[in-house]
């Protein structure tokens, strides 16, 4: 194997030079494919946001703003502290956010207690059933259960349990508008995903009980896509009521639309470039075999078998494809990263937090594996026919005359 690698790589530079023109479209196709995957994978970064929906007489105003509390809650709670305090007070404490990737609480107050009702969640997926009843006093809440990853922690919580939050962190900082530190709440109901049911239920409840106004619904996210999904759900669930969108949401929608357009454009162009690239690559390999006919004849005359010629050419061609693939992926990363940067700077809402390079270059194994597999598959097919033809060259045909 080592001998073959050495033999094939010996001609690499010459082959690459000869293939350069025919490989350009192929490289472009791989680059655009990579860029497409990078643009489609994100480009707006990851952040934490709060979506507020406040139905009133004129409609529903959806407001989006940075949400600090999930971050703070991560600092506030620690399992040890909660267990310790819980034992002392004889109440059950909500499991800490550090352990809970998803969390959902809805607190309903009476008109007499103008404390904002709140829903906190870090994940919106799969909430289906509402059991028990909605809270009607300031010290009642409903909590979600069976959100898979934290179900074990909440499995023990049942209707009638008393739970409490600790709304100050270990440095004594409090979060304004959040549950009061140490305040006790009685669990009146349990929810299961998806959250749309919660909203539906809440809205229906609000309409049946107009004397209990819903002043706000707050939702916290760490995943932008969940935020967008929630926004769409909210807009859909307030049926018949005008919805006033926050400008940040509009900007986000624009960024999504822009990404969609770029992705569509990239799908078309990368598809066309890859198709053209495949054809030109076949031609390039064909040309390479053609100009090396004499060389093949010489190798055959000194004892190379057809199979050896086939293996040699396949190896050489695939080595070239790997070089083109690397060039294509690097160029594609630059293109995709550049597009992401443009989209991010122009459209990303203010609450979006960039997670460093990942926001611009959301590179995953998939980002690399798809172009690699496609390039190698095309390369193999493109190489096969010229290589088989090359191996079938009769030495006597090509050695007869001087070229």
């Amino acid at each position, binding site marked *: 194997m080592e*001998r073959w690698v*050495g*033999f094939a790589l*010996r*001609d690499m530079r*010459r082959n690459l030079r000869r293939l350069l023109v025919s490989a350009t479209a192929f490289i472009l196709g791989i680059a655009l494919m990579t860029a497409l995957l990078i643009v489609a994978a994100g480009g707006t970064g990851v952040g934490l946001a709060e979506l507020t929906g406040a139905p009133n007489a004129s409609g529903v105003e959806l407001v989006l703003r940075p949400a600090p509390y999930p971050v703070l809650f991560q600092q506030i709670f620690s399992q040890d502290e909660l267990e310790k305090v819980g034992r002392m007070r004889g109440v059950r404490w909500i499991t800490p956010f550090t352990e809970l990737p998803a969390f959902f609480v809805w607190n309903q107050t009476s008109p007499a207690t103008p404390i904002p009702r709140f829903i906190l969640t870090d994940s919106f997926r799969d909430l289906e059933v509402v059991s028990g009843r909605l809270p009607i006093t300031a010290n009642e809440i409903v909590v979600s259960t069976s959100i898979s990853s934290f179900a074990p922690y909440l499995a023990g919580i049942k209707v009638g349990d008393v739970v409490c939050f600790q709304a100050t962190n270990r440095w004594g900082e409090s979060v304004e508008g959040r549950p009061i530190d140490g305040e006790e709440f009685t669990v009146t109901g349990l929810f299961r995903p998806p959250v749309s049911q919660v909203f539906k239920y809440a809205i229906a409840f609000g309409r049946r009980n107009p004397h209990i106004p819903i002043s706000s619904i707050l939702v916290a996210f760490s995943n932008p896509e969940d935020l967008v999904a929630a926004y769409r759900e909210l807009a859909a669930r307030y049926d018949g009521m005008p919805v006033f969108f926050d400008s940040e949401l509009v900007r986000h929608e624009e960024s999504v639309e822009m990404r969609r357009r770029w992705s569509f454009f990239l799908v078309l162009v990368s598809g066309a470039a890859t198709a053209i690239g495949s054809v030109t690559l076949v031609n390039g390999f064909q040309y390479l075999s053609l100009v090396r006919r*004499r*060389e093949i*004849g*010489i*190798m*055959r*005359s*000194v*004892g*190379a*078998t*057809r*199979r*050896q010629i086939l293996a040699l050419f396949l190896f050489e061609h695939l080595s070239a494809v790997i070089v083109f693939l690397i060039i294509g992926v690097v160029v594609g990363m630059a293109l995709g990263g550049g597009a992401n940067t443009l989209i991010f700077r122009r459209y990303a809402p203010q609450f979006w937090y960039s997670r460093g390079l990942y926001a611009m270059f959301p590179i995953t194994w998939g980002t690399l594996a798809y172009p690699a597999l496609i390039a190698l598959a095309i390369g193999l097919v493109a190489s096969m026919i010229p290589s088989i033809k090359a191996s079938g060259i*009769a*030495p*006597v045909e090509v*050695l*007869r*005359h*001087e070229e």
Partner: protein
Amino acid sequence: MRNRDLERPEYSERPKHSEYLIVANHISKTYDMGRQKIHALRDVSLAIRRGESLAILGPSGCGKTTLLNLLGGLDIPSQGEVLFESKNLASLRDPELSDLRRRRIGFVFQFYNLIPNRTALENVALPLFFAGKNDKDSKNAALQALEEVGLSERCDHFPAELSGGEQQRVAIARALVIKPSVILADEPTGNLDSATGKLIIDTLLGQKDRGIAIVVATHDARLAGQADRTANMVDGRIVRVESAR
């Protein structure tokens, strides 16, 4: 010896293995060019002993190259058979035929046929690469072969950096490196001046002493004069075979 001598029993019957290295029995080669058929060889019989030198003489287009190609298994006859150590070359599969060329038959062409982007050493080592020898052994053997033709000092030169005579000597070294049983040389001096041609002739015929059979297709009367036998070809037929006096 006239051509009819070839029809004596020793030629018309299969010769004994030990006596002859290559035997061509009534071989013909016809190229089908659409409606036209070109008869390059017509009913040629020839036997080559181990260690003998044979010069094939004749005008251009008389079939010398075709005959060499058939004797070396680069091509197969339309009719008749070529036996290499009693094996019919037409019956061999590609790996067996390639193996034979790789180990037993050395070719020297008029236009050298060296790979231009490989050094003299790499060109000489080429058959050994395909034979599966490791790099070190191949390099040593190739160096030794180049030394035999007096070109070891130019082993790192590319063909374009060598004169015609030097390129031909590299080609001879490539044929010698496998320690062949026979060297088939097609017009080896055809592109060279007379002094260089003489050097090539001496180099080639010098291999006879090692028991290597040399078959040379040539116009060169000097070369033919030094061979053990000469076969004269006209229009695809051997018309006369003469032994050296």
